[in-house]
């Protein structure tokens, strides 16, 4: 993985010292809350319902064991013993004291971690495919480019006060696991007809109040021009993006107002002045960064491993886990091991300090010291030798992290919602807990098959409900919690935005409504059809009829 150099470490040390001074001045009243708020937000520190919340960046979702242990130590020492992994491949701590924040930043910096640009109207933590470097369908590791973007965008003076926050995602694979079509800028590495690798550039995707699928403004960009082209996009956005209304300030609104053709024309015109200039990437520099992502040297082992062959006969639970939670690795004889943080009835994305520490050990023992965070609030050990799977499975089972529910009903994405978030209309996590418990039976989940439920507590859509196969959005009506339900959203290739299935449903009926919808799918589905396929074939109307009949 990427190793910090002296420059990175010195920069973080300066930031910690600066923040320590700012906090001290706030606590003694030299700085007012109004003066201090933007400074703390620049360091990822929010004030939520019950306490301060610290959002720590996990750049492109990659951690090593030492870093995971550092996060566990923060959970133990400064929080309530757990952390919450988010849909932006970050981790949040919910119970932070302002007075402790500088020490926490120092502890993070000691593990080459930070909370910079996890908030505010800047270029946020760049996200990537969680299987980067391991996926079979990958053309090139997207994290090389995420890191180049990180270096370019970190405290970039021109882009520190954008009209609004700005999110970039990169995938290097054929299948889009990074939801690049729903980011301000999405980048897809692909190979053109001449065999060259470059980027397809998408602009103006996003969720929130106005969900939009990003538009391709350049089908093929040579890799060396990446930063020049991004800079051109940012300049056009900075110049024309609306600053008068935060709801209309994201680049998706600008792309919509200008039209994607005009947006493309302006970006390309801006790029003309930049291309081939200082921002052109030096191949040596790219090679040097690529070297830091080289990953472990894995020895291909095409022969089936006895332990893996034999164990399913002995323990069918292992087989279920192997089939559900692991996928083939690009190197034969290895698997990508997914760790859903979705035990039945538990808050999605939460991990205890003890789990993080044990996972750090397992990553070091079996996973080449590499752990990934996914935007689906799960973790991944991307490089595991098949022969090690039985031992790893037993250890994970002991931690409660071997539930074979990846991509199933109980693998729910939920934002913090009204239990923690000051912006929420309704709770999210308890809805997820109640649905997960209702569908606890794994055989039933497997029969239902792939189904992605996403629950947001307000229109900010932190849980990406618009692109859930079943999307659930909390709304408030006369002081009570209600939920709007959409069907048929999809974040990856074949991206779509879910369609509203009917009027908002009161909290007391939301779990039953999900059950009614799923029963409808089971009744309507044709052999081999996933939930999403059935919804796309029959539309939402038959589901609405069933909900009306049940209401």
């Amino acid at each position, binding site marked *: 993985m990427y190793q910090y150099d002296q420059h990175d470490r010195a920069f973080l040390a300066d930031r910690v010292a600066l923040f320590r001074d700012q906090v001290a001045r*706030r*606590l003694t009243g030299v700085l007012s*809350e109004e003066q201090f708020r933007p400074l703390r937000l620049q360091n990822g520190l929010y004030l939520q319902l*019950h*306490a301060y919340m610290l959002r720590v960046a996990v750049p492109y979702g990659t951690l090593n064991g030492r870093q995971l242990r550092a996060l566990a130590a923060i959970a133990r020492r400064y929080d309530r013993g757990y952390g919450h992994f988010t849909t932006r491949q970050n981790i949040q701590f919910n119970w932070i004291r302002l007075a402790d924040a500088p020490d926490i930043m120092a502890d993070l910096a000691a593990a080459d971690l930070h909370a910079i640009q996890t908030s505010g109207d800047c270029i946020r933590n760049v996200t990537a495919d969680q299987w980067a470097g391991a996926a079979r369908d990958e053309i090139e590791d997207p994290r090389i480019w995420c890191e180049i973007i990180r270096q370019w965008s970190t405290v970039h003076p021109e882009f520190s006060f954008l009209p609004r926050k700005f999110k970039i995602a990169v995938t290097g694979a054929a299948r889009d696991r990074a939801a690049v079509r729903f980011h301000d800028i999405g980048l897809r590495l692909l190979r053109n007809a001449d065999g060259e690798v470059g980027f397809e550039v998408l602009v103006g995707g996003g969720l929130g109040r106005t969900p939009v699928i990003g538009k391709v403004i350049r089908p093929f960009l040579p890799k060396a021009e990446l930063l020049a082209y991004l800079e051109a996009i940012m300049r056009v956005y900075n110049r024309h993006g609306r600053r008068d209304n935060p709801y209309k300030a994201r680049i998706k609104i600008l792309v919509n107002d200008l039209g994607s053709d005009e947006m493309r024309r302006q970006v390309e015109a801006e790029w003309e002045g930049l291309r081939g200039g200082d921002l052109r990437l030096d191949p040596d520099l790219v090679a040097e960064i690529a070297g830091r992502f080289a990953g472990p040297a894995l020895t291909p082992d095409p022969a089936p491993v006895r332990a893996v062959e034999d164990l399913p006969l002995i323990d069918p639970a292992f087989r279920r886990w192997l089939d559900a939670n692991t996928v083939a690795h690009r190197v034969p004889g290895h698997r990508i091991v997914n760790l859903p943080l979705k035990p039945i009835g538990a*808050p999605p994305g939460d991990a205890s300090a003890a789990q993080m520490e044990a996972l750090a050990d397992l990553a070091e023992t079996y996973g080449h010291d590499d752990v990934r965070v996914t935007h689906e609030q799960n973790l991944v050990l991307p490089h595991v030798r098949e022969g090690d799977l039985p031992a790893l499975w037993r250890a994970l089972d002991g931690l409660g992290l071997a539930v074979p529910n990846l991509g199933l009903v109980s693998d729910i994405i939920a934002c913090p919602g009204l*239990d923690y978030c000051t912006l929420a209309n309704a709770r999210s996590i308890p*809805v997820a807990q*109640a649905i997960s418990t209702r569908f606890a039976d794994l055989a039933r989940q497997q029969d239902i098959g792939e189904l992605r439920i996403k629950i947001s507590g307000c229109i900010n859509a932190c849980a990406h409900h618009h692109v859930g196969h079943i999307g659930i959005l909390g709304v408030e009506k006369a002081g009570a919690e209600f939920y709007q339900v959409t069907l048929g959203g999809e974040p990856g290739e074949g991206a779509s935005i879910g369609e509203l299935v009917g009027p908002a449903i009161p909290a007391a009926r939301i779990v039953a409504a999900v059950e009614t919808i799923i029963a409808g799918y089971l009744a309507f589905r044709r052999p081999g059809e996933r939930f999403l396929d059935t919804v796309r074939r029959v539309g939402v109307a038959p589901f609405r009829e069933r909900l009306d009949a049940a209401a």
Partner: protein
Amino acid sequence: MAKTRTGSINVVTANRLADGQAVFLAAAGGWVADIGRAAVATEAASAERLLAIAAASVARQEVVDPYLVALAAGEVRPLALRERIRAHGPTVAAIAADATRYPE
């Protein structure tokens, strides 16, 4: 969710500056975590008085963002779910223990 729901019975809440904890202006003065010990204003004038005390506390860097929380008549129970969660903590642990309790 609206911070305050209309009501004539109120307490004042804020977040303590140093740790962010949700606190309530106490009858005995100062801020307490237990809403049961909060000073209750039953008329507009006394609510204004409590807010003035809170503003002075803000100026002393003790708390931030004070506001009124409307209570149900006759009990120290905020009308808004948001404020009940703020006063008593997240509901997720209770639901993890017994999911049939949702949506209590």
